[in-house]
């Protein structure tokens, strides 16, 4: 009993002091939320949604580069064309992995997660950007 309790306390403490916990969510709140909103709904016609966006599945292999380098030009999400520049965010590979996994598995999304090697590979071959 005591061991179990001690173990529980230790686990809780470790989790408290681990800055990694919920990193994806924190990165979303810091870098994405002001435009894509708390619920991932975006802004009607102006900023595409994250929530239920077909783009996340269809362009899965381009998302790491999209986060790092941003986008300038039209983009079609769920059949609606948006055209507003998105600035890139200067994040490490592990941070991008956490952010992508948060986006792919929240806001009602239930898409496959990424591994870090997968994200690293994507970032090696980013298309030309500004």
């Amino acid at each position, binding site marked *: 009993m005591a061991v179990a309790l001690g173990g529980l306390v230790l686990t809780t403490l470790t989790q408290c002091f681990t800055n990694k916990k919920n990193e994806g969510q924190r990165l979303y709140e810091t870098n994405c939320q*002001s*435009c894509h*909103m708390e619920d991932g*709904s*975006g*802004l*009607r*016609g*102006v*900023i595409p949604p994250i929530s239920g966006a077909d783009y996340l599945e269809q362009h899965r292999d381009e998302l790491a580069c999209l986060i790092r380098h941003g986008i300038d030009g039209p983009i079609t999400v769920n059949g609606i064309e*948006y055209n507003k*520049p998105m*600035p890139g965010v200067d994040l490490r590979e592990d941070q991008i992995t956490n952010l992508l996994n948060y986006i792919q598995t929240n806001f009602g999304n239930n898409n496959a997660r990424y591994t870090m090697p997968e994200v690293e590979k994507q970032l090696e071959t980013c298309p030309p950007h500004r």
Partner: protein
Amino acid sequence: MIRINKATLRKYTLLLATAFSIGFLTACNSSDSTDKTLPILGHREAVERVVDGKTVVDTVYHQIPDFAFINQDSQRVTQETVAGKIYVTDFFFTTCPSICPKMKSQMLRVYEKFKDNPNVVILSHSIDPQHDTVAVLRDYADRLNVQSDKWHFLTGDKDSIYDMALQYFTGVQEDAQAEGGFAHSGDFMLVDQNRHIRGHYHGTEQEDVDRLMKDMEVLLKEKQNGQK
């Protein structure tokens, strides 16, 4: 005889209690909704004048001065556009990366709720009129899918727009340090049919925009009743 009296008494007591309860309920209701009034914001001056040999003191409230801007249809929007209506106003710019998307998503809620009410107008002023031309605002409004005669996106002389922001007590300024190059507050201001400011809300907070929409109902009722 006594028995009848007792029964009658009980009946009267019940009746009285019911009457009181109804009275209480009505009183509560009326003070909750119909009696609520909104303050007039801004400085006020006492102006004395003489009527029939007696000195009368009038209170003069801060009033939004005449204005003239251009909307997304290239139409002039002036004090005539909002004459006899209540309106909500804010200051933004279309390329704003920080608080504007949130403000606009909240203003959309206001728009959706009051879009069929002819007594309500929304005025969104661009604080970056050089970039936010009529064509840019046209595109923005089209994307939001809103009606021009209900929600005006305004551009025009920059100094005039910044002067108007001061009149609405909204902080705006050019600031190279700020995201997007302009610093501004996310305020929504509620203005009545006499161009008096009646409320101030944080346009990025859902609960405060809920409060705005409730206050708009109060103001519309006041306007309907023809009160000052």
